[in-house]
């Protein structure tokens, strides 16, 4: 088998295993831990009959093994089941939300990188005051509690200054250009809080790898060859220092997509994180399982993309 095909196959296999793992963990948790979805869906004065009917309708009256087998079988056919509480296919329920989460996390990532790289470079190449300032704000940013900044931003930028709307992803009754504008305006605050929170780790990682890179022999050689400091930093050192940062992107993207629960909750952003939270409160098993499948898939795709980016940046991988 050619190495590339073998590589692709291995990645695929790993992806499948990861998804299977996520599915199994959630499946078992949902069924082995206490909590009855029939109770969660109906109102309190429901009769036992209704409850039995519901359990039967959800297929929860079968044995664990049968349920598991059925679920995996469905999954193989790309069928995530039907939401308990919404009576619509899980795919429909999730696909309404996924784009928003992706928009939020990806735009936050882009902004983070666009701001983070220069900050990291400044910190690494201009030691002393600027370095300390960047480092300290990175640490503080990293340590912020999302709801706290959420409240703060909403209060000042939303209520007091009225720069940005409070909650939601776009304004109703807007069309065309105005719609895009409203999407952008709604995106700013949640995106900003995500950026604040994750910027620190990128800047700090980049800073330290860049400092390492600048001390490497190849930077010394670049200087010995009479290259200007700017070229040494931006071309020779940064290209190398970005590699660990790329890995971080991959590690974090999956994490951020799942971790956006708090952000999405604070800003009523209709993303998948909030969807999960709501599904938990209703014990909507199929939606929860589907969401975890989707999140694992996102992690896999994110890792694949970072691998690709890594390959582009690192010829040692590309030409191996």
């Amino acid at each position: 088998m050619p190495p590339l095909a073998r590589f692709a196959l291995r990645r695929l296999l790993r992806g499948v295993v990861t998804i299977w793992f996520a599915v199994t963990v959630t499946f078992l948790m949902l069924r082995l831990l206490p909590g009855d979805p029939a109770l969660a869906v109906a109102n309190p004065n429901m009769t036992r009959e209704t409850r039995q009917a519901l359990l039967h309708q959800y297929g929860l009256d079968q044995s664990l093994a049968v349920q598991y087998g059925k679920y995996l079988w469905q999954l193989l056919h790309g069928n995530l089941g039907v939401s308990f509480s919404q009576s619509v296919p899980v795919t429909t329920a999730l696909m309404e939300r996924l784009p928003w989460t992706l928009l939020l996390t990806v735009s936050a990532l882009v902004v983070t990188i666009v701001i983070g790289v220069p900050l990291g470079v400044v910190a690494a190449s201009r030691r002393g005051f600027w370095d300390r300032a960047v480092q300290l704000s990175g640490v503080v940013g990293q340590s912020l509690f999302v709801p706290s900044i959420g409240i703060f931003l909403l209060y000042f930028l939303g209520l007091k200054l009225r720069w940005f709307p409070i909650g939601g992803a776009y304004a109703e009754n807007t069309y065309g250009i105005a719609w895009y504008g409203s999407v952008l305006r709604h995106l700013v605050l949640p995106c900003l809080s995500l950026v604040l929170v994750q910027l620190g780790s990128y800047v700090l990682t980049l800073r330290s790898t860049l400092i390492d890179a600048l001390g490497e022999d190849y930077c010394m050689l670049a200087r010995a060859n009479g290259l200007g400091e700017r070229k040494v930093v931006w071309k020779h050192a940064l290209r190398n220092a970005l590699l660990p940062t790329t890995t971080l992107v991959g590690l974090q993207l999956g994490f951020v997509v799942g971790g956006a629960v708090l952000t999405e909750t604070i800003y009523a952003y209709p993303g998948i994180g909030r969807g999960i939270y709501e599904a938990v409160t209703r014990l909507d098993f199929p939606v929860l399982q589907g969401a975890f499948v989707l999140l694992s898939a996102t992690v896999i795709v994110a890792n694949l993309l970072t691998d690709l980016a890594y390959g582009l940046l690192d010829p040692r991988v590309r030409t191996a």
Partner: protein
Amino acid sequence: MTSLIESAAGTADVADAADRPTAAKATWDAFRRNPLGILAMGLLALLIVVALVAPLLASYPRGHGTAILRPPSAAHWFGTDNLGRDVFAEVVYGTRASMLVAAGATALAIVIGVTVAVCSAYFRWVDGVMGVLVDLFLSLPVLPLMILVAALVGPSLQTIVFVLAFFSWPEVSRVVRSQALAVVRLPYVDAARLATGSPLWIIRKHLLPAVAPVIAVSVVLTASRAVLSAAGLAFLGLGDPNSWSWGRILFEAQQSGAMQEAWWTTLFPSLAILALVVAATLLSIAYNDARDPRTRKD
């Protein structure tokens, strides 16, 4: 044959080297010089003291008061909440619970994580299995799962501790394992393998001491992440409702709709979270810097 025993010159040379500080002392010397590190340590110590002597600082916030949602004053330094309870007392006792949760979860996560990491690094077959497991765990969306478990099991101090630990150990394991792998490859471990056939001996005498600094950093970072996660859970209404934690103060402020107007109900617990996490992070950075001879410039 010339005498093989080191000549006076040789011993003198060793004596000369003797006052070279040990790694630990060099680290401490470097650490002491870093104002941020000292500041962080002070802050952390302060929070620990607050947690320890909470009863001396305030009486446990229970029942209800008459002054509702009052801004900070001399009587109530941090103001009062919607039931007229003293926010300062809540924050003080919150420090206690938050740190307890963090400590419990961290201890558990560290024990599991380090055991797995060290065994993985030392025994290749363990690494085959555990490595995959850790990778799989790391690709799980942690916060949603924590929410799920906390919601299903029912929020209590124990649940929170277990949930946090259950989802934190893989990260500990990942970090410690990579360091342990590096150590296992060092020749002195090979030398130890030639000295004894007991893996336990090697792990105890060589591996654990060598990864101890990483574990130390990991403890601090895991704890600070645990504080954030616990606060997140509490904020979503999944904290232990019977003990005061910073997250619960925020949650109650949110539930009572007082968040926007009564800024003191949200500001102070938020600051407490920030202070703890910042202190922990700065401490670990300062420690790492002090440990690295390159950054400490000696």
